[in-house]
């Protein structure tokens, strides 16, 4: 059990700064996910926590100790690698016991801990096999088992599921969630897959280009993205981001206008924008609904629609029917694309002119700098 705290952590390779001053606090027992696009520095950050990379600057604390200069084995961590990294010349049992063998632990202790890990992961029957006789999912279990045997304060995972096929990935994701619940250990998990991040995390750290973009719970990030990067990265399908101009501001609302939106009034107090500002509106696909039938049939905006209901019009270019929902891609007046997630049995077809009703109270608003406006 241990809390982990990163304070101004930096990593420099030669003259390039890869991690640019990262502050993160991870509570004891928390499941924390680092997520971001490929090359953003997630692995580098995790490997610095593990002690596999030198820390160029800042302070890393695990438990109550500053561990900047401690070797990996003294940091109370265990790591699960993307390639599993289990030893091909050893049986599963020898793999699980490797750390204890190195530490010259008594045989009884070794047997007990290996048996415990094998029981947790339900692989008692595999103990005498060699890695070459295991499937990908089983190998991943061995790697996780080897971490469990160490009884670490912190588990570190670097994209552990990305070599598994899609179905297995979903299963293993649930097992990891259960493992975390059972062991109650602190876990730090790196992935580029925002679905994994959303489903597993207590706390998500979104990284881009070596900088923390936002730290928060999955729903925090979903509902209140701090900037355009997080807005575009979290959520599937992606949030629609539309440029607009501020037409007017009053005490309780902001009025926006653009070719695509027509006019859109967001109910916001003290938005911190003023008339004439260029802004970006974020509309989640799941927060768009089809307007009523009559209005759809009379496809031209007539100007005498029910007051208060605002609409976005476009031409349907693509329809993806997933069963539980239907994704429609529209092209708007400016040529920009908009994705809407509609009910599974919605009646739309390609080429149709469709009018959608946004939910202004759930829209996000971003300044031209990219920062979100509350």
């Amino acid at each position, binding site marked *: 059990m241990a809390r982990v705290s990163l304070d101004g952590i930096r990593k420099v390779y030669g003259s390039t700064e890869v991690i640019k001053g990262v502050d993160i606090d991870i509570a004891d027992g928390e499941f924390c996910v680092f997520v971001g696009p490929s090359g953003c520095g997630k692995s580098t950050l995790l490997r610095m926590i*593990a*002690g*596999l990379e030198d820390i160029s600057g800042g302070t890393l604390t695990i438990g109550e100790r500053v561990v900047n200069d401690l*070797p*990996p*084995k003294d940091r109370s*961590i*265990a*790591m699960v*690698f*993307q*390639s599993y*990294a*289990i*030893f*091909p*010349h050893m049986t599963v049992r020898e793999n699980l016991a*490797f*750390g204890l063998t*190195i*530490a010259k632990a008594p045989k009884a202790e070794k047997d007990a801990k290996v048996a415990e890990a094998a029981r947790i992961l339900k692989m008692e029957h595999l103990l005498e096999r*060699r*890695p*070459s006789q295991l499937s990908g999912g089983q190998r991943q279990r061995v790697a996780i088992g*080897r971490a469990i045997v*160490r009884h670490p304060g912190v588990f570190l995972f670097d994209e552990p599921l990305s070599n598994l096929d899609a179905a297995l990935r979903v299963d293993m994701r649930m097992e990891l969630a259960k493992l975390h619940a059972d062991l109650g250990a602190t876990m730090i998990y790196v992935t580029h897959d925002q679905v994994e991040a959303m489903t597993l995390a207590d706390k998500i750290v979104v990284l881009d280009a070596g900088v923390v973009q936002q730290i928060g719970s999955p729903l925090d990030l979903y509902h209140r993205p701090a900037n355009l990067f997080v807005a575009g990265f979290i959520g599937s399908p992606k949030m629609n981001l539309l440029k607009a101009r501020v037409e007017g501001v009053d005490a309780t609302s902001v009025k926006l206008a653009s070719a695509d939106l027509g006019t859109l009034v967001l109910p916001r107090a003290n938005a911190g924008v003023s008339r004439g500002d260029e802004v970006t509106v974020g509309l989640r696909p799941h927060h768009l609904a089809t307007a009523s039938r009559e209005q759809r049939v009379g496809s031209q905006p007539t100007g005498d629609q029910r007051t208060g209901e605002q609409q976005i019009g476009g031409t349907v270019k693509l329809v993806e029917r997933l069963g539980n929902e239907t994704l429609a891609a529209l092209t708007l007046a400016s040529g920009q694309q908009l994705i809407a997630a509609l009910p599974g049995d919605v009646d739309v077809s390609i080429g149709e002119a469709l009018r959608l009703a946004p939910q202004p109270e759930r829209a996000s608003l971003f300044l031209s700098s990219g920062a979100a406006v509350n």
Partner: protein
Amino acid sequence: MATIASDNRGLRLAVRYAVLILIAVIFIFPLIFMVMSSFKPDQQLLNDTGSFAAFLPVGDISLDNYADAFKRAPVGLFIFNSVLVTGVTVILSLLICSAAAFAFVFVDWRGRELVLTAILATLIVPFETIAIPLLLIASKLPWLGFDGLTFGWLNSYQVQIVPFIADGLTIFLFVQYFKDLPGELIEAARVEGASWGQVYRKVVMPLAGPVLATAAILKFLVMYNQYLWPLMVVQQEGYRPVMVGLQYFFQLNRAWGEIMAYLSLITVPVLAFYLFLQRAFIASIASTGVKG
């Protein structure tokens, strides 16, 4: 269509085998000639060379040549010397060169690129160019042996062993192999608490079967065939290896039967050993399953 295609394949296979057999024959006939001749008296040996009989155990067959070869030279001693020098050098070379390569590939230290480059550069220096300076050095080096501290390594085993333990080619072979091992495997061992020495012994070396076999075979060939260096540094019969021993048979009268007997004695066991090692080599690749 299908039958034509498979006929074609059959034909191609036949041609391939024919070529392989031809090559095998070209390589094996001199060996057969050597072994067969070693059983024949000189006169018959020379007469047979004109016909296919040269490759057959016909005529006056006996082990006389072997008996005479042992009388003419201490053959057993030469073989013992060569096996000792070769065996010790191969084992030490595998240990030292793999440890060096390990340090070059896995351990991060200042100047390792430079040192590795310098070592690889020695690959282009032929041994003949450094033989004389090496002789001068070897003739002055101290040695702490059974009879205390002595100076000068001439006429000894160590003078035939030590200069050949570390070499650029063997280090290069290990470096290439280690670079291809998955780095996460080594990192996993480090996280589990293994020291560098333990990573070397428990992870890297057990996975190095193929490169160990390759390096051992190459080193063995070099060492067993040593001629120039032992000729320079060993004047006493006691430390002489097999290739230098060949001189004994070219001195006064040239006894071809005895030469063939001597050559058979020093090559056939080596061939047998090589074939055995090759088997083990293939088996080791098949069983480690490093690819997984």
